[in-house]
């Protein structure tokens, strides 16, 4: 890993308007994510999640408001400069992949953020191993199935070794092994003190892997807290207003009167506690 520490990310009253004013995708959003935080972004389709994260590396610029990365206004930095800090993995890998082999695909981004040749090989091998594509290094990306192409897109960004990792629906289309790889990426990021912001519709994954959950709806932030807070029964009305369902463990815990049990582990612990009494 590089020695660069994660910068604070801050959105100040950011509004983003698409299509000449027809769609207000972000509506006066303020959000601060501290170095090393691991944050899930949830909300219904079209609620502004992807629009929000694309502001973090300059792919989109605010219609009004400011984005600060490490205290510096992102308006003064190019996408290439921001890419050294913030690595963004798209929801659709085909928007990202272009090279003729898996290895060159992964090398490209790392070279472009100025990773030194001496470090490049280790970074590329490490990223490929992390996502389980080490044995496919010479394969053409388009000979991989959709789920492995998605892991390839993830590896390309991992190889850039940015201190901030932004993942747009990383577990979509992944099988048990693929989801395990994504969990491994989050574990490594936590250990390295890197910041992670991930968009997900998988509430169980969100409740299990993230310390902080931000709920979006209609281009605004509706809730922001720990999984136990956001998935507590008192918050379900709000979740359902934006077409989200609490994880099954939370629903079962509520039916049994055990309080907020957002994860399977929390539910089983609460049941064990109830048995001990």
């Amino acid at each position, binding site marked *: 890993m590089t020695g660069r520490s994660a910068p604070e990310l801050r959105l100040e009253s950011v509004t983003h308007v698409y299509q000449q004013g027809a769609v207000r995708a972000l509506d006066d959003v303020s959000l601060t994510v501290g170095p090393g935080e691991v944050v899930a972004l949830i909300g219904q389709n079209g609620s502004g999640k992807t629009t929000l994260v694309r502001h973090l590396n300059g792919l989109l610029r605010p219609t009004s408001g400011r984005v600060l990365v490490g205290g510096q206004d992102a308006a003064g930095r190019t996408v290439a400069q921001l890419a050294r800090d913030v690595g963004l993995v798209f929801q659709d890998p085909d928007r990202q992949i272009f090279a003729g082999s898996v290895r060159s695909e992964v090398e490209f981004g790392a070279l472009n953020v100025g990773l030194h040749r001496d470090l490049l090989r280790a970074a590329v091998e490490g990223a490929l191993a992390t996502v389980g594509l080490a044995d496919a290094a010479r394969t053409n990306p388009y000979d991989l199935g959709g789920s492995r192409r998605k892991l390839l897109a993830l590896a390309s960004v991992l190889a850039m070794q940015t201190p901030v990792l932004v993942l747009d629906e990383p577990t979509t289309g992944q099988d048990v092994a693929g989801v395990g790889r994504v969990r491994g990426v989050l574990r490594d990021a936590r250990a390295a003190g890197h910041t992670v912001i991930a968009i997900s519709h998988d509430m169980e994954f969100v409740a299990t892997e993230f310390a902080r959950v931000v709920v979006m709806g209609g281009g605004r932030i509706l809730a922001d807290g720990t999984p136990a807070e956001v998935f507590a029964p008192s918050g379900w009305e709000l979740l359902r207003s934006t077409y989200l369902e609490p994880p099954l463990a939370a629903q079962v815990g509520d039916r049994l009167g055990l309080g907020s049990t957002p994860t399977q582990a929390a539910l089983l612990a609460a049941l*064990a506690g109830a048995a001990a009494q």
Partner: protein
Amino acid sequence: MLALESVTYRYAGALRPSLREVSLTLSEGEVVGLAGPSESGKTTLCLVASGLAPRTVGGTLTGRLLLDGDDAAPLAIHQLAGRIGIAFANPATQLSGVADTVYEEIAFGPMNLGLPRDDVIRRTDDALATLRIEALASRHPARLSGGQQQLVAIAGLLALRPELLVLDEPTAQLDPAGSRMVADALARLADGGASILIAEQKTDLLAEICRRVVVLADGAVALEGPAAEVLADPRLEALRVAAPADVRLSRAADVARLPAAQRERLRGAVGS
């Protein structure tokens, strides 16, 4: 009715077949789920069942695809298109790219079937209403979120009103409510007599809408049977398929060695 008889399929230039001796029947009004880990052959099976492989994809196929008992081999792609609809996991592959609004996008299919104008309008309105995306009608398809595009792609398919539907991870990018709308729409279509083959990683969704589930592993059928039985099969995990959340929760309670009374309590609450 759609049937695959001992189908082995190999992509052009591939060393190994992607499907091996797969047999599968889809009766009228039946919803069959297709599960399996990544690269087990789910997408390939969708391409074969819809007739796209080998017709447009190339490759070689042995075995037979039967439509209402007749060999589909002599049918051209446009003859199949009116009978079998396919939706891909990535909506960007599906959208026509020529429509400036969601409304035109959904009307594109029925218009190409040469239907009368009134019929096209009725079908388009129905499809928009079924997936509750009327509010998107005047938006540009390319400027929608991934999940919204997925709903539009499925609406375009519904507007064709095919008797057979093949869906490859149709809810991959959808929020839980979007998945529910698609599930409800599919259940209604099946009630109306449509036969549906649906490949999904989300086994919770399969448990809800499928009568039968087929699990593929390495291009061959590994498990097959009533949905509830297959999705609770302990071999599922070794096949790298996540069981539905309720099955996993009950199983975790067993592993955690909770007292029997607490396990019973949990089981009761999971089912309700």
